[in-house]
């Protein structure tokens, strides 16, 4: 097992090194996301300010602000965007250079993304984790990180990382079929944003929309780890959600491999 994974770590190391060399690029990306989070927080302040009750769907304003920050942190912990890789590899014909290597393309891309993910963790997710932990300890925001929830959060994040990558990979393979990168990216972003719970908590959705959200894998990437860390699940809900995450992870890994094995036989390689 270790021997088979070893060559792939080289890809992670390479993209980590490159990513870190271009860390300003990532930093600006993060800043633009932070601005969006800031806007969301202001909107919630306005909404709660105009409401007669202090709690909505079980969230006080302080809890809602924590929710937004934690889900943002969760998003950056699970940041995997194979669509960029696949689009790039496809249009330049660079995929040929991957296919001459004694490694599987799908896992090469996984580890490439993992390398970038680590860069993001070092400059955003981990600092944010420290800030939020300090916040929960020093002031009462109605959210407390305990050792138990933190461990479960880490475990849930690992599963979320797999779901995030393989669901996005399946989406990204459509680039090889449709040749339409930009549209696919926008569509992917929009679907994820709405159905992951990163825009508003899924409990705010009407029943039918909630059903769609739970049929899609994105809730398992964003909402589940976030609610685990916020300790909002009963213990039975917790295990069910972790189970669903595990099922998604396994199902998507198998699905992505199947889809890729079909695409690779039909692929055209651009150029030269």
């Amino acid at each position, binding site marked *: 097992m270790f021997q088979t994974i*070893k*060559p792939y*770590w*080289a*890809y992670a*190391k*390479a993209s980590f*090194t*490159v990513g870190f*060399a*271009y860390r300003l690029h990532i930093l600006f990306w993060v800043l633009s996301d932070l601005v969006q989070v800031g806007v969301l927080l202001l909107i919630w302040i306005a909404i709660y300010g105009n409401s007669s009750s202090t709690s909505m769907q079980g969230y006080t304003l302080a809890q809602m602000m924590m929710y937004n920050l934690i889900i943002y942190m969760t998003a950056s912990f699970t940041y995997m965007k194979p669509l960029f890789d696949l689009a790039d590899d496809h249009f330049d*014909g*660079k*995929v*040929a*250079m991957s*296919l*001459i*290597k*004694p*490694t*599987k393309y799908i896992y090469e891309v996984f580890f490439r993304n993992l390398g970038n993910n680590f860069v993001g963790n070092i400059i955003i997710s981990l600092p944010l984790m420290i800030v939020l932990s300090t916040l929960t300890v020093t002031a009462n925001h109605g959210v407390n990180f305990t050792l138990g929830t933190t461990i479960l959060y880490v475990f849930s994040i690992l599963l979320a990382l797999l779901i995030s990558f393989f669901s996005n990979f399946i989406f990204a393979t459509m680039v090889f079929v449709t040749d339409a990168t930009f549209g696919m990216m926008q569509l992917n972003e929009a679907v994820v944003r709405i159905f992951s719970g990163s825009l508003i908590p899924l409990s705010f959705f009407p029943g039918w929309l909630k059903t769609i959200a739970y049929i899609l894998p994105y809730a398992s990437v964003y909402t589940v780890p976030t609610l685990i860390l916020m300790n909002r699940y009963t213990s039975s809900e917790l295990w069910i959600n972790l189970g669903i995450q595990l099922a998604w992870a396994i199902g998507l890994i198998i699905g992505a491999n199947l889809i890729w094995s079909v695409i*690779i*036989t039909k*692929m*055209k*390689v651009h*150029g*030269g």
Partner: protein
Amino acid sequence: MIEAKHISKSFVKYEKEKGLIGMIKGFVNAKKVIKKAVDDVSFTIQEGEVIGYIGANGAGKSTTIKMLTGILTPTSGELLVDGIIPYKDRVRNARNIGVVFGQRTQLWWDLPLVESFSILKEIYQVSDEDYKARMEMFEDVLQLSEFIKSPVRTLSLGQRMRADIAASLLHNPKVLYLDEPTIGLDVNAKLKMRQAIKTMNKTFKTTVILTTHDLDDIEELCNRILIIDNGKIIYDGALSDIKTRYGSDTKVSFVLKEAWTDFVDLAHLMEVDPKDIIVKVDEDKLEIGFDKRILSVAHVAQVIMKNYEVTDLKIMETDIESIVSRIYNEGKVNVSND
């Protein structure tokens, strides 16, 4: 080492009509066109051979290479590289092969060159001793140390190609595919590339398949050539065979002291059939084309010099380039192969 039996590869292309309306029509209902890039190609290559794979642009060379490397799956036919079906067992096949695509790089663009090598070392699981030994060998042939610490994006094309060929040889592959490895290189860089290929072939019996438009590459390196045209192999055999078949055409051109005025029957003077020689005259320049097997250069020169005052003469043997362009134009070659 390599066995290809009747392999074909066709691509589906969607043809769109011209203009805005055609574009809109094509969006809904594009015409499907099937293009055969490689059409019923068969060949066998032994271990240690250096094969020149030549053909015009778009003839199907790269598509063949991509099938051999396992990147593309043939539409039909059988393919075996060192006992492995490349497209079915791509990862295992990839351990045995090294590939250089002249127009691409497998190096990490933003990292220092040496980093790329150490990443490849891990991907191919090359041991420390082998890595050291090979880097020393590359240093001898390719002189990488001058730029090994520079990021790949800052390298010149010649340096990058040298680095790329080293990268493809790092794991000592059994088969080396070179798709236009000398494209855009200056003379010096070309010589280094050829030297590296020769060294690997001699030391490790590496089988080499080389596609190129540079016929000096072929002449320097290959003992056998395959010529592909329109997806079909039109010649498979020794370079020397094709040279004797087509290369006996020789031209001798003379510069005469005075403009040529008398129309002497040169064929008669040389004692050959008039259709065996082609005479071209342009004032004081006289050019005689003939087949070396019928007439000797010495005889032609002797006859002319006896009758005219010659100030200069030049002998032009057919180069491989004009042979190949003749074959492209004629299509199928009728050289008997055994």
